[in-house]
């Protein structure tokens, strides 16, 4: 099972792996972190001019960290724009992924949040720092091995 974009990428000898289609029939591709920047540029040139969503998740305990990009090709007079979902998996030891900020500027806060919650370090991001947690926070709260510190909160009040 190969989608249109996957076939297009294969024709241009770009390394990727197809992960099938999601429930809406949107093609899902896995791309290695080292290829992601160049392929992102190619996808932008191809016409994906809109980053609809960027998110990240922890795949499994002790496993990889995934950074997910939903891209859309916006054009005039099209009701069903082309969409694609890209997943970039980074190892937990040294999670580095190229940033797409300079291609799709809307990745700015999204990637900062992914960094804040999961500790994925986005290369070439202009101001990669914590956005939700205090800057002195230690640890990555949405990782599966995160242990919350025993802070006294007002919620402790009965």
């Amino acid at each position, binding site marked *: 099972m190969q989608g249109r974009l996957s076939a297009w990428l294969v024709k241009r000898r770009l390394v990727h792996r197809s992960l099938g289609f999601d429930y809406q029939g949107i093609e899902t591709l896995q791309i290695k972190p080292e290829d992601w920047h160049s392929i992102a540029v190619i996808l932008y040139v191809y016409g994906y001019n809109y980053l609809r969503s960027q998110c990240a998740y922890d795949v499994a305990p002790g496993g990889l960290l995934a950074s997910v990009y939903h891209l859309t090709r916006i054009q005039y007079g099209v009701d069903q724009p082309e969409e694609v979902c890209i997943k970039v998996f980074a190892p937990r030891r040294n999670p580095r992924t190229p940033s797409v900020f300079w291609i799709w500027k809307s990745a700015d806060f999204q990637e900062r949040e992914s960094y804040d919650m999961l500790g994925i370090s986005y290369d070439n991001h202009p101001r990669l720092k914590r956005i939700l947690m*205090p800057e*002195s926070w*230690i640890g990555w709260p949405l990782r599966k091995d995160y242990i919350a510190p*025993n*802070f*006294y909160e*007002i919620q*402790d*009040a*009965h």
Partner: protein
Amino acid sequence: MASTSFSILGWVGGKRGLGGRKMNSISAQQTDVQQQSQVNIQQQEEEKEKVTVKQPQKQPPQTQPRQPMAKSKNMSVEYGGQWFSSVTRHVRIYAAYIDPVTHAFDQTQMDKLTLLLDPTNEFVWTSETCNKVYAYFQELVDHYEGAPLAEYTLRLIGSDIEHYIRKLLYDGEIKYNMNARTLNFSMGKPRVIFNNNDREVQDVQKD
């Protein structure tokens, strides 16, 4: 590098302004301030946490002279939000010198930690229970020495003190101040006996 003695300033229930509200304050600080002021901030932070204690652990905290000439410093807009603090209901820790009388907030003395204990006066404190909390504070500061001076570290210390206060409350060593301005029992509603493991219930028939 600097002097390594670590002393504590604590005072209890002084009669001061603010409607006669009790404010307990403690300041863990190094004695050699002159030498501190010559090194830069980064070194100060490291130094503060690397302080080693010569005095034995269980000794009550020794009093340190207050600084009557202290003035509020580094409180202007350009320093706004820059101070390190951990603020919960019963424990406020600031990395600054706070004068107990004038409430001058001197943020240039980052090598000191000041603890304001129960500013809203929710509990009834005696000097003995206060000193217990101060000693525990001292113990925690020793425990976290070498850690970076950051909000996170102060938060850890402050939370541990809050848990310790809760333990004191459950052990019956302190109790709620029924004349407090807000009486909402933030650490649990009062019970007759909190930790009653070692006591026998009276009305149970024992054979």
